[in-house]
């Protein structure tokens, strides 16, 4: 089974590496967004899937990441290799703050509070006009390939590779962290907080940390989206973004890493797909799809695929063991 996991990751990595050769530049551009959303949703996998805290407001951290990069670039001329980590740090710290507040909330109350955060984000961004440019927004300089690669690949392809390298690194990091003690503690808190305490796990620390960690990822994702778009404005970070992230996470599979990847694909391409199905009322199709998924496939796509593959694998192992 181990071998299978490494193989599938290797195939994926190869695919990511080679894809820009075969797809047009704008498609690589869209796949960059997939990568960014996947990173953001990975944060939700940590926070909600593994640790059980619902957040309907992660779009706010996207916004903080995006604006951090924009402001640092515009006002201080900070290059991206510095401003993206800074964006992660700022979002992470604010996430820790929210995490502290969230300690006192759970379930629907937390959903409600984070929903209100998401709704309030655009007007808060608009308010601090001198910093954020108000409703006019801020332009974000584009990311050009470094010297030696100039002319060999386009800016879009460079951004694509940078994004997926970051995504790969973060997924790897997360996989290791969640596979060990940290993951066990987070899961224990999710499944039965009271029992976890009796095992010596300090829920306050882990829950707050999970919030900060997931917010940092969302900040990175927001920074990438801002660089790709070349522009940030309050309208980019409406409640629709937060809801799309959670929806993508749940449809993909909220508690698996593959789910985060699928979630990225869903957030990016589902609206386009739905427009093709019914150009007159795409949101109706989208909404009904959500409802049906929650009734029939609440574990998301990743879990459903696993549910199919797992018995097959098991059967094969038993067969091997017998023979």
């Amino acid at each position, binding site marked *: 089974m181990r071998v299978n996991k490494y193989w599938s990751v290797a195939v994926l990595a190869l695919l990511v590496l080679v894809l820009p050769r075969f797809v*047009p530049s*704008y498609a690589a551009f*869209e796949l960059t967004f997939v990568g960014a959303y996947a990173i953001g949703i990975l944060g939700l996998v940590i926070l909600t899937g593994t640790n059980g805290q619902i957040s309907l407001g992660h779009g706010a951290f996207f916004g903080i990441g995006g604006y951090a990069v924009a402001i640092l670039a515009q006002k201080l001329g900070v290059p991206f290799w510095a401003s993206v980590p800074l964006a992660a740090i700022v979002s992470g710290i604010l996430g820790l703050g929210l995490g502290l507040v969230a300690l006192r909330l759970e379930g629907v109350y937390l959903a409600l509070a984070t929903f209100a955060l998401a709704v309030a984000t655009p007007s808060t961004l608009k308010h601090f006009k001198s910093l954020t440019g108000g409703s006019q927004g801020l332009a974000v300089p584009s990311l050009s390939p470094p010297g030696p690669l100039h002319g060999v690949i386009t800016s879009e392809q460079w951004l694509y590779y940078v994004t997926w390298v970051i995504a790969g690194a973060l997924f790897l990091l997360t996989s290791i962290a969640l596979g060990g003690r940290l993951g066990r503690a987070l899961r224990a808190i999710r499944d039965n907080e009271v029992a976890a305490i009796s095992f010596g796990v300090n829920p306050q620390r882990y829950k707050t940390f999970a919030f900060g960690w997931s917010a940092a990822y969302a900040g990175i994702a927001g920074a990438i989206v801002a660089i790709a778009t070349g522009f940030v404005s309050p309208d980019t970070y409406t409640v629709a973004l937060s809801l799309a992230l959670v929806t993508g996470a749940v449809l993909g599979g909220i508690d698996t890493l593959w789910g985060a990847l699928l979630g990225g694909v869903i957030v990016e391409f589902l609206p386009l797909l739905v427009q093709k199905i019914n150009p007159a009322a795409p949101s109706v199709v989208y909404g009904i799809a959500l409802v049906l998924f929650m009734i029939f496939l609440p574990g998301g796509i990743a879990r459903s695929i696993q549910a199919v593959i797992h018995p097959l694998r098991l059967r094969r192992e038993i067969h091997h063991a017998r023979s």
Partner: protein
Amino acid sequence: MHVRNRPLAATLAACFALSLGVGAFAPAAADEPGITPTEILLGGLHPYSGPASAYGAIGKGILAYFAYVNDKGGVNGRKITYKDLDDAYSPPQAVQLTKQLVEQDKVFAMFDTLGTPSNLAIRQYLNDNGVPQLYVATGASTWGSDGAKYPWTIGWQPDYQSEAIVYARYLLKEAPNAKIGVLMQNDDYGEDYLTGLKTGLGSKSGNIVKVATYEVTDASVASQVASLKAAGADTFFVFATPKFSIQALVAAAQQSWHPRTFFNSVSASATILGAATKAGGEDATKGLITTQYLKDPSEPSWADDAGMKQYREILAKYAPGADPNNGFFAYGVSIAFTMVDTLKRAGKNPTRKAVMDIANHLHETDNFLVLPGIVVETTPKDRFPIDQQRLARYDGTHFVPFGEIYAGRGRGR
């Protein structure tokens, strides 16, 4: 090779040379993206979902007019196809869809892309790649004023700043010491209006005693109106979208506040004011001043106008079910007229550069939905196609135009 037949050889050589020459000078229509022998492909972005979806009607108006033109043979023998996508008013979506339209669908130009944030987001890319961003559907002034930096981008409607300048000029003549209260939507739309008002008032911008803002998520603006009244304003500027404009007028009437009121053109249709009258009584809307540049389809005095009749026929045939009284449809038809006009002038083999040139040298006098006397006109120095407007006063049922046609951005008129 032995050339036996000299005249034949000469002819062949001449043909060859000619074809080279022709190939070099004739704009290769086949090479120009979006142009095929039978079709011109244009791309567009409108919000068909989300809070700004009311503006989607503009896209529908455009499609109706293009269908009408196509039925009559198209433009110089080519049909116009308008690929209009939903960007949900989101800049990242706008950028991705634009790249798709330009690189996959290979549109000839972007036309009537809607919303200031989306247009700001795609402007750099389009200009970097020499793709015309024609007649954008927003009144932000930057499309015209930043023409030097972004030569491939051009607006169409009178920009909000110039509209406010027109109000300011009129007010300075009528009541130079008026105390002004402003209600504005808290975004670039409202801000542009306010900037224009201050510019137009010049040294008298101190006359503004209070500016109150509202958000589109607010349930009511009664509180803002109360603040303005309490600040002692006797002149009220409403820079709001239709829903909040109605609420503002009703609130003012309820609070027994009857200032001289100016009402921005986006919200100034007879339908909207009729709604305000129904909800707030006659007091709410009588004597309102606004500007106009298009004929308002909900205004009964245009009922017998040939242009208005043509508009209604087009909608009835090509957009059945659309409410012709909705001003957004009229906007769509009118701006599509300018687009078709531009393409026609580009001739048999339009190129992007040629079309952009024409857009910078417009002189359109026959747009059948634009008010008589207003000319859609540009020069390389003046890249605001429509900047003339007419003041009009609402008398309870109609808009009665008065005064002359103002040019908001002084072109000496």
